[in-house]
């Protein structure tokens, strides 16, 4: 190698090396500049963007669900409340051995296979740091059992939650309604932000119609969370607003009395305070237990409810459509007076039947022997069909519709509950559109006695009765009388919403109607006399019965109905209000297949009025009957004892 050394130009090598170093240093400097430029880009120009992304990474907005408002009746009885419930929850990423833990828990707690299946489905769909319930609504005893041994179950906890509870159960189910789990369909129609952190939504009744008030507004909590989402500390808390409390117009006492008075019959009872439209009672029987829906209904339970021949989920007071039968007669008198075809002197002769001019077909009165000559008031009192065939014939269907429509027939009343149906006020237009034929004169006669295609709801009947009681003054019926703000505690009354007054065109129109109804209730020969005669207040009433299936007009009287199956028997109807001189309550009762309004439906109305006006049920109570009434002011009645005397 020394030979090479001699010919190597060491100086030239050194110079070349220096140049190489210089080039390397230059390239290196360029690379450093490149790094710096990139850092300036990231840390100066794009700093805001990356700051935001950094915050997005670590900050989680956690909703704070509001507490749902309570629901009270008009006297402060709780109808819907939130009860603490103790759930057994498992946090996946804190449990060393999930299978073993569940097996061990099943030894001390009543955990079913269903519970385990549901749990396993949920835990798969939930981040592992979040607690998932394994068993809900533990009894105190089971909570204690778990607490004794809890050190053995790492990652398992008892968690308190609020669960909706309905203390009255069945008796107010249709009015109060219930909450149920939020479905995907719900989320399409509501603002999901308002349901952040919530898992229940009002499904029926006031729970549904006043959902926005009851629900409240969720708050938010901003927490710092790590990469797997486990919250580490709270950065910001913005409280939500709890739901408002609702004070219903419903009087639980009346609700219970009506429920019990219907006995074995299905049907609907609606009581309204005519002075302001407060719905005092709204019963649909049979009821159902709203608690079933709160924690999710099993498929089998739901099918059983749907297939129940009594249709407990169907709200007979708002959705049940019935022919009004004879309960329409007072309104027909009013229509006749308004139109001028009737006056207080008008008499019609009842031979037991009516025939249209030029026809031999007989339209029968329920009393085959005939009522003889009757005035309008007497016709109401005795419910003479022939009088109303005459009235209807003279009015014609157009005028009947014109004068009955203002009472609200054929239209929803606008009550603040969901699902109300409008019923049907018979009209030639409707028949043409839906039945495809012209209006027959005979249909006018049927309309006059509340049969045929007539359809009303119990609420409509009660509302129309209330308007009679108030001689035309009316209010939109409503079930919420006040709203309590959960934050300030302030209670705001809901102002009654007046309806256009029905002005009498004949000075005695209201007098005639009310007098006829009072005679029906409290004079001999009145169809409700036997039930109302001993009432310690003045009652105006009208009985009714309506065919369930179309039977030929003259195919037998109501007296034969004990011989036919229950489901074909006539519906019994009844409307009343009291006291006549100072109306405080109007009641409509529909007893399905109860046959006679007087015997099946009237006692229900009587008991409801007794309870409201006297504070206890007088009717059918031998001790109380005939005794002078107690102070009739409902506001000063003693606290509700919970049962009605029978």
């Amino acid at each position, binding site marked *: 190698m020394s030979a090479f050394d001699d010919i190597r130009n060491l100086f030239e090598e050194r110079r070349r*090396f220096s140049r190489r170093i210089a080039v390397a240093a230059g390239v290196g400097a360029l690379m450093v500049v490149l790094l710096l430029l990139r850092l300036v880009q990231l840390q100066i120009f794009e700093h805001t963007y990356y700051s935001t992304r*950094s915050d997005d990474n670590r900050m989680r907005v956690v909703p704070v669900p509001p507490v749902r408002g309570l629901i009270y009746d008009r006297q402060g009885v709780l109808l819907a409340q939130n009860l603490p419930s103790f759930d057994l929850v498992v946090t996946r990423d804190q449990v060393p051995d999930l299978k073993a833990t569940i097996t061990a828990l099943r030894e001390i707690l009543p955990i079913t296979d269903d519970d385990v299946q549901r749990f396993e489905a949920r835990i798969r769909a939930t981040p592992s740091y979040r607690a998932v319930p394994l068993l809900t609504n533990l009894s105190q005893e089971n909570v204690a059992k778990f607490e004794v041994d809890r050190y053995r179950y790492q990652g398992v906890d008892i968690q308190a939650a609020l669960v909706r509870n309905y203390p009255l159960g069945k008796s107010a189910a249709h009015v109060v309604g219930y909450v149920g789990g939020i479905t995907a369909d719900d989320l399409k129609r509501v603002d999901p932000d308002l349901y952040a952190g919530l898992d229940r939504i009002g499904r029926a009744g006031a729970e549904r119609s006043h959902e926005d008030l009851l629900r409240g507004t969720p708050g938010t909590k901003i927490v710092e969370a790590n990469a797997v989402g486990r919250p580490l500390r709270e950065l910001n808390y913005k409280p939500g607003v709890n739901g408002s409390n609702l004070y219903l117009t419903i009087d639980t006492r009346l609700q219970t009395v009506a429920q019990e008075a219907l006995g074995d019959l299905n049907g609907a009872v609606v009581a309204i305070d005519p002075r302001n439209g407060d719905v005092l009672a709204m019963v649909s029987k049979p009821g159902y237990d709203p608690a079933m829906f709160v924690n999710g209904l099993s498929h089998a339970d739901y099918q059983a409810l749907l297939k129940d021949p009594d249709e407990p989920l169907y709200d007979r007071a708002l959705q049940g459509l019935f022919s009004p039968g004879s309960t329409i007669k007072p309104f027909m008198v009013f229509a006749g007076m308004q139109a001028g075809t009737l006056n207080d002197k008008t008499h019609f002769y009842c031979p037991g039947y009516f025939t249209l001019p030029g026809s031999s077909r007989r339209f029968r009165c329920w009393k085959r022997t005939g009522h003889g000559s009757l005035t309008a008031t007497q016709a109401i009192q005795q419910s003479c069909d022939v009088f109303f065939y005459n009235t209807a014939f003279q009015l014609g269907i157009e005028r009947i519709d014109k004068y009955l429509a203002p009472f609200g027939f054929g239209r929803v009343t606008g009550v603040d509950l969901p699902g109300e149906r409008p019923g049907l006020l018979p009209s030639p237009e409707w028949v043409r559109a839906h039945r495809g034929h012209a209006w027959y004169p005979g249909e006018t006669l049927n309309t006059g006695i509340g049969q045929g295609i007539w359809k009303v709801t119990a609420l409509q009947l009660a509302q129309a009765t209330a308007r009679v009681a108030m001689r035309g003054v009316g209010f939109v019926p409503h079930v919420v009388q006040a709203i309590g703000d959960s934050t300030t505690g302030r209670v705001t009354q809901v102002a009654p919403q007046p309806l256009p007054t029905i002005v009498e065109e004949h000075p005695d129109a209201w007098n005639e109607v009310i007098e006829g109804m009072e005679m029906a209730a409290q004079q001999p020969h009145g169809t409700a006399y036997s039930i109302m005669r001993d009432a310690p207040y003045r009652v105006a009433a009208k009985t009714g019965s309506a065919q369930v299936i179309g039977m030929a007009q003259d195919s037998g009287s109501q007296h034969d109905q004990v011989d036919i199956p229950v489901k074909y028997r006539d519906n019994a109807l009844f409307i009343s209000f009291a006291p006549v001189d100072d109306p405080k309550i109007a009641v409509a009762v529909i007893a399905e297949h109860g046959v006679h309004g007087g015997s099946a439906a009237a006692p229900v109305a009587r008991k409801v009025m007794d309870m409201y006006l006297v504070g206890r049920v007088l009717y059918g109570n031998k001790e109380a009957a005939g005794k002078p009434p107690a102070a009739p002011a409902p506001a000063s009645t003693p606290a509700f004892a919970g049962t009605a005397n029978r």
Partner: protein
Amino acid sequence: MSSTPLSTASEPKPVRVRRLILSHVDPWLLMLLLGVGAVGLVTLYSAGDHSLSMVIDQAERLALGFAVMIAVAQLSPEWLRSVAPWLYAFSLLLLLVVLAVGDHGKGAQRWLVVGPLRFQPSELMKLGMPLAIAAYLHVRALPPSIWTTLGALAIIGVPVGLIALQPDLGTAVLVLAAGVLALYFGGLRWRWVALALGAVAAAAPLLWMHLHDYQRERLMIFLNPELDPLGAGYHITQSKIAIGSGGLWGKGWLMGTQAKLDFLPEAHTDFIFSVYGEEMGLIGALVLLSLYAAIVGRCLVIAMRGQDTFQRLLAAALGVTFFVYVFINIGMVIGLLPVVGVPLPMVSYGGTSVVSLLAGFGMLMSLHTHRKLLTN
């Protein structure tokens, strides 16, 4: 540890000791390296979730590294040159052994276990490679002839191939860089450099056309990880968020949320610069880059003062390789380069690389402090 073969080599060799043993230490390099090491420990405390034991662990490794550095500095450059072929051959042998019987770690066969010791032979090759090329070119006419160049390429290619087979792409790149840089400083002709680069550039499209779709996709993600933000791109995306959110002044020491909350993977190893950039900002990055630049600059100064070809080539190759180290790591962390497993020298947590790096600086010190007065 890679210190094993080195420590046997540190048996006192009869060098003329005129002053204290520390006289062979270059104070500039020592101070700069201590500075970077200190920055590393402080950052590690934050990146490692306040784990003091991790910091102590790393401090012990640094201490061992500095001890090895001082020991190596005592060796004479002549001795280094004489053992260069042997160290290279020994490293090559170990690389073959590790491929045959090596221990698996993180899906690659890199580790060799001898009794209680466990180390990566590729680290040894990081030193062996520049030594070998420098010694090889020392005895040849420069600029290298075509045959000399081909010989050097063979010396470089074999170990690089073996390391790439493990597979350890990061180390392979660094070893390749060490060898090629030594060759470059030896005066490799520019036209050959241009020819090689041109050949690669021409082959690329041809190769691209013969790739399957899924292979192209993989390559695209490799080159641009943001195409796959939840998979391969997750690291780099989170790293850029960390650094970008640091801004000019940073979030402050221990205040970085990206690493604290586990968004940043490998925060204490390969991606420790993200933590540093998040907490110390652009200003902090400038300080650290300045330290690194000063170290490389000092290395180049030492190279310029080298008294023979071996010394100059070794010093320049070691110094510039160190720079490549820094550039690849930071470039990767800030999204300029594809993600390859290269730690940030002196800062990332992990032992072997610290010791081999500091042993390299020991050589640089040896070169610098054993200079003789030249007579010619």
